[in-house]
């Protein structure tokens, strides 16, 4: 390979992939665009995920454990109270003055209450939360898929869509990993409308956006319980997932769409050991009658009503522009070339939202390659990039997710439904923190990773002369590795 081909391959890996790893420059070869496109033809499934529970199963497991915790806690509390009742008369007979007796009793009562609560808490804590181990297993599989990929373009797309349609493990830990596999990964290279239907109909999303209890004011449940609508889900779908903010929809559209979506909920986990935690349409919550969204009338009286609105949102030109802009911003530049965005949006419109074709349009356009490496990698990409450079393919998920959290991009825990931002300004102040992590990681791997070998073999020597010099003059291997990982060559793409 010529030097310019090597440079192009390194850029390919940083900008569109998960970063260089041993053998990855050869995998890119002399036709980077072809190699990226070829990767999209491989299946995106995680074969090792067969051993992991479905989202519904994971949800039931956690719900069952919670129910058992509550029961044990109640039992322990009752038992503690019984024992105190038995001991109480003897205590009060010792009291002299009436005043002291009252105070003593009050104090004794509060101690009893504390003891009972303590017993309840201990009993509950004896049953561990199964949600965290599930989260960690999912995190491990997803990370190792990124480490093992030749280039990692397809994995980057999974990450992108997972962030675009984010849920938070802070709300729904049990399902967060399975959600990505079932809804996002399965559709990330398919049609946008299928991806949209899968994520909006997924229990994790309904749970995350507080939609489970949303009911029409005129629905059976709404009348009986004097409760009503939660607009959040409908608003976020239009603002964040499809059309984009300020694209012409009105507050009335949001309310109508929220009415359309009433009844989308999940099977209560306690009610059904087979299907608890799965999606269901509950007609008792659903606002009866037709609704008008964005000027179009939807007369269906079941879940089909919502699916029809989603289909139209997916086909809306504003959605094409919104999605194309976000994709180009993520991969190419904070302010992506307008021509590139328009090419991608056009492909989106022309192919009815074929996401693979949109990705192909992006990497086939010269506009996606011309700009300097101005993007600052997000923490997740950067950490995976470090590990890939060393050739390591397995991770300890506790450490790994801890590292990402430290850097401000905790896996599946974005601070808001908007997901993690994609611009330099949001992340650049965290570069100092990255130095701590790089330094720490470098210390851990200094026995097995040679910085010179990484530069020569993994990067095919395609790093700035200043970086080579800094690495060569470092006082220790650890320092050399830290400088390499912190270099602009490694953080920019």
């Amino acid at each position, binding site marked *: 390979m010529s030097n310019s081909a090597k440079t192009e391959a390194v850029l390919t890996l940083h900008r569109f992939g998960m970063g260089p790893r041993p053998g990855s420059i050869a995998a890119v070869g002399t036709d980077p665009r072809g190699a990226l496109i070829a990767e999209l033809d491989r299946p995106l499934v995680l074969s090792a995920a067969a051993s992991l529970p479905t989202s519904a199963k994971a949800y039931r497991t956690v719900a069952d454990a919670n129910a058992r915790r509550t029961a044990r806690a109640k039992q322990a509390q009752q038992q503690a109270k019984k024992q105190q009742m038995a001991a109480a008369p003897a205590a009060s007979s010792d009291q002299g003055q009436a005043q002291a007796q009252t105070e003593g009793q009050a104090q004794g009562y509060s101690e009893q209450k504390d003891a009972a609560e303590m017993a309840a808490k201990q009993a509950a804590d004896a049953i561990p939360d199964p949600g965290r181990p599930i989260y960690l297993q999912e995190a491990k599989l997803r990370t190792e898929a990124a480490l093992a990929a030749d280039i990692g373009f397809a994995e980057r797309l999974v990450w992108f869509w997972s962030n675009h349609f984010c849920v938070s493990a802070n709300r729904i830990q049990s399902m967060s990993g399975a959600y990505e596999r079932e809804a996002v990964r399965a559709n990330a290279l398919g049609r946008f409308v299928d991806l949209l239907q899968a994520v909006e109909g997924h229990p994790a999303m309904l749970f995350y956006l507080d939609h489970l209890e949303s009911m029409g004011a005129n629905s059976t449940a709404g009348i009986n319980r004097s409760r009503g609508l939660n607009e959040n889900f409908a608003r976020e779908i239009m603002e964040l997932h499809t059309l984009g903010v300020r694209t012409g929809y009105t507050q009335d559209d949001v309310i109508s769409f929220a009415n359309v979506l009433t009844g989308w909920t999940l099977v209560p986990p306690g009610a059904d050991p087979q299907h608890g935690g799965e999606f269901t349409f509950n007609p008792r919550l659903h606002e009866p009658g037709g609704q008008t969204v964005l000027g179009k009338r939807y007369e269906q009286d079941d879940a089909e009503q919502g699916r029809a609105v989603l289909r139209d949102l997916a086909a809306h030109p504003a959605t094409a522009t919104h999605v194309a802009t976000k994709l180009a911003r993520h991969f190419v530049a904070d302010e992506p070339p307008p021509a590139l965005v328009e090419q991608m949006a056009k492909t989106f419109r022309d192919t009815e939202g074929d996401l693979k074709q949109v990705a192909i349009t992006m990497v086939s356009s010269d506009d996606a390659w011309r700009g300097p490496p101005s993007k600052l990698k997000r923490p997740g990409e950067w950490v995976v990039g470090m*590990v890939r450079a060393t050739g390591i393919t397995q991770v300890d998920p506790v450490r790994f997710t801890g590292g990402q959290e430290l850097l401000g991009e905790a896996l599946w825990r974005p601070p808001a439904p908007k997901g993690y931002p994609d611009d330099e300004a949001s992340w650049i102040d965290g570069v100092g923190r990255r130095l701590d992590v790089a330094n720490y990681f470098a*210390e851990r*791997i200094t026995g097995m990773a040679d910085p010179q070998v990484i530069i020569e073999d993994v990067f095919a020597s395609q790093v700035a002369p200043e970086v080579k010099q800094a690495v060569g003059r470092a006082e220790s291997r650890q320092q050399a590795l830290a*400088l390499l990982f912190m270099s602009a060559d490694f953080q920019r793409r």
Partner: protein
Amino acid sequence: MGFVDHLPTRRELLVGSGALFAWSQMPRIARAEGRDPRLLAIVLRGALDGLGAVAPVGDPDWISLRGDRALVLDGKPPALPLDSFFALNPAMPNLHRLYRTGKAAIVHAVATPYRDRSHFDGQDVLESGMSKPGVTASGWLNRALLALESGGRVDPRGSRALGIGSVTPLVVRGAAPVMTWVPRKLLPASEDTQNRLLDLYQHTDPKLATVLQARMKLASLDGAMGTGDPMSDDPTLAPPGIARVRAYFAEAAGTAARYLAKADGPRVGAMGFVGWDTHIAEGAASGQLYNLLGALDGAFAAIESNMGEAWRETVVAVVTEFGRTARINGTQGTDHGTGTVAFLIGGALSGGRVIADWPGLKPAQLFEDRDLKPTTDLRSVLKGLLRDHLRVEEAVLADAVFPGSADVKPMGGLVA
């Protein structure tokens, strides 16, 4: 194990595993004498500027060599007098106190046999005990331990050495098993690493340079105001000031001492501290080197106090791969050199002196007209300690521990 979970597992984690200490680690000959000696080696990685640590204030060429960067007895702060000729960096009051009570000695103008200027090779020679780099993957302290246990009286479960840090220092690696303990605190990237990164950014990415510079400024402010929280369980949240370096040094050294002090604990150990490669803004009297030496001085205090009763049978040898240029370079720092100092501390020492065959500082007296000329072979110091403190036989020292060093006689009289 960092972000990875399949690093070599030959080493064991000490934390909370008392069973590891179920047999005595006492060197046999010493035990026969009723002694129970401890030896801890501390490697200062990056090459310590010996002249910035222990200044030859009595040398007529000292001031002209270092100018206003020279440590002097009437400086601000004043250097601490050791004898009529040498003075100690003011960052090290603990060492000064130990010295004055005979529990510390300083060897000056000392070096390993290595005469080139690569850190990696220099550390390899320093720790392997060989006269050339790249010869073996074991260290002199490990081989010394093996030698102690030979002669038909080998403990069937083998002797053990202690390594501190996630990477076992080469000096203690080898056939004798090593148990390791990893400090809980994260060691922040050293000031030197930050300076180098800043330099790299200034040449390649001005935006990143601005951000890093702001962070470094914040950290130095924090250090000056003393608002850092070195005891925080989550040091990653604190600014990366010198407070964290001090906390790390003290925790690592103090923990090593606690294990070595145990009645049934290991008897030899090793650890490394990084950050001594002071090419830019060395700051011997106030700044980078001053801060690091202060942290090292704090580590000495932690060792002394955590050793408890065992302190009187303890020797700590503090060594570095080579020294630095005698003159200050163009960036107010010093470059890779040759002769430097070694610190020896411990209750078992016969100290209170600077051991030096002083070569002088005139241009013709410098090694290659640039470095402090080495006049003492570091191996003679180490051999003296191993012979007189641990009772390793001289022939074994010349043959197995420091191969090919028969001409380098052990330095006598270091141990009381």
